């Protein structure tokens, strides 16, 4: 997995609440069997009209926000489906961090699997950052220090330690778990005796 240490750049403001995964990446793009190539379809229905032409005033279609690595969005970002295509499309577009007041659980988890840092801030801080983003002020996100800096604002954020480590080191989660193979096997042997119906072959 890609590492995440720190990030510097302007942030795209998207002041909409409940941005769902259908908005992030509509269904017609879920037919791929690859993880890559989805950036061009990110926020498809907001970015393109019915004929597939760019909608010029949508923030990610305007310069310099079309180069944003950071997204500042309204409450409850990423609600809806479990599609990992949502973080895949964000990442493929170049977004490596999303800032909001809250995230849907599955989306939040999916971000960490892909080297994207979702950051939860207070509603007051979100307002400040949204304004800074609109004003094209440069953001600095420092994961080791857990700080977002934008203009005069310096905002600390929380992150669970294991998630932080995984991002910093770009760890392979499956590889780590496979180190516990013996424990998994022992668990299964124990349950075969205690709950045999779960292991019956059909």
């Amino acid at each position, binding site marked *: 997995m890609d590492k995440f240490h720190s990030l510097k750049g302007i942030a795209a403001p998207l002041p909409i609440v409940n941005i769902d995964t259908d*908005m992030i990446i509509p269904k017609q793009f879920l037919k791929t069997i*690859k993880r890559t190539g989805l950036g061009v379809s990110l926020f498809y229905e907001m970015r393109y009209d019915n004929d597939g032409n760019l909608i010029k005033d949508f923030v990610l279609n305007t310069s310099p926000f079309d180069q944003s690595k950071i997204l500042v969005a309204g409450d409850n970002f990423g609600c809806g489906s479990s599609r*990992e295509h949502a973080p895949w499309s964000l990442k493929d577009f170049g977004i490596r961090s999303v800032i909001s007041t809250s995230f849907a659980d599955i989306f939040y988890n999916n971000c960490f699997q892909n080297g994207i840092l979702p950051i939860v801030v207070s509603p007051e801080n979100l307002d400040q950052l949204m304004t800074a983003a609109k004003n094209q002020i440069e953001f600095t996100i420092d994961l080791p220090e857990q700080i977002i800096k934008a203009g005069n604002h310096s905002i600390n954020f929380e992150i669970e330690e294991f998630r932080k480590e995984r991002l910093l080191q770009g760890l392979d989660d499956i590889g780590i778990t496979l180190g516990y193979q013996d424990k998994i096997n022992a668990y299964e042997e124990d349950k075969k005796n205690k709950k045999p119906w779960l292991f019956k072959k*059909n």
Partner: protein
Amino acid sequence: MSNQGPKTLFDKIWSEHLVGQREDGTNLLYIDRHLVHEVTSPQAFEGLKLSNRPVHRPEATIAVADHNVPTINRQNIEDPQSKIQVETLAKNTKEHGIQYFDLMDQRQGIVHIIGPEQGITQPGMTIVCGDSHTSTHGAFGALAFGIGTSEVEHVLATQTIVQNPAKNMRISVNGKLPFGVNSKDLILYIIGKIGTAGGTGHVIEYAGSSIMGLSMEGRMTICNMSIEAGARAGLISPDQTTFNYIKGRPYAPGTEHWDQAVEYWSSLPSDNDANYDHEIVIDSSEIDPMVTWGTSPEDVVSVKGTVPNPSSAKTENKKKSIERSLEYMGLKPGTKITDIKLDKIFIGSCTNGRIEDLRKVASIVKDKKIASHVQAMIVPGSGLVKKQAEEEGIDIILKDAGFEWREAGCSMCLGMNPDQLKPGERCASTSNRNFEGRQGRGGRTHLMSPELAAASAITGNISDIRDFTQNG
């Protein structure tokens, strides 16, 4: 969460499945059953291949294609990408020795319909699937939740998942359900009350006499939409209704283990004095048949109500969100819900595509015709639901009324297959999401119960089943 003292249903399942703690402090949770479909699995299988890892326990996984499948001609999938995705699932499952119900198998259907139908879903299990509506299986007292594709790969490789415990929330609904009010109305009402982020970080346990009085199918509708309330999962205590439903199904415990399984299942309900982080109590008499007016499942109102006015919103964000929704939905504040005219009716999905749903619709539209300006389709949740309905003559009643009778799949719930709304089309839908573009770009979705959708198909407007039954 302590190991001592009273426990919730969630606490019990959690501690029973804890394999251990990793050095990074995270918990490894054992997964009893893994359901796999064509959309969220190809990249996971590819990942296994690239890292040369086998599937840890192939017999704990069951696969089916549901999202992409056509509901008319099953012989050929016209969309080349959809076709590749379905073929990829067939190839991957074969390669790894995973049971796969193919398109011609009568057991094929929506993954969350066939799990319970086959008896795969059982109390006390942990069940995951790369699909957010995995919460459906919580109706059986199984801890079931949606996961991303990276986690699908993790479960395939290790049969475990890395998780930290959720918080416990209990929503109790008490009392006899008023006439015309059923499980769909209950869950829409709950989502309206707590909001789409109301359950974030929690597992919601539904309790109370209204919930426990529901059939298994009604309970599945409730748990199915837990994700629309932001919850990680929904749960309902297993009871005799649950055991009766499971008994005799193909993957259910056989006679040799049945008593032992029931004894275990009976130990699962939450202890009387268990603690919840959050509790909500609802009196069912306050609930009406419910309909969504906007583009989030929390945008819900009584069918007797009106489209809200943005100026009445409590916050600026909410006001903007209502304005955006109304513009998308093409609705004016103050419009009576029953004055909203429809173009399409969709009955189906993992929320409401089961036999009881189809029976309800048939009983309402029997000997009637759908309004001349609407197109109405029924997509059974599985091949076996379809077969059952045909044996009961339900298909004839529905076709006589003007409904299209389709093959099983997810269909217009998300429109990955050709079943989609056109821009501006308005649909009464028994599915679970009314997001912008969900059923097709520019399509306008009103979520409701099968009863309301059936009544609305006949009148051509969103209709209150209570008026319909009295006058119709």
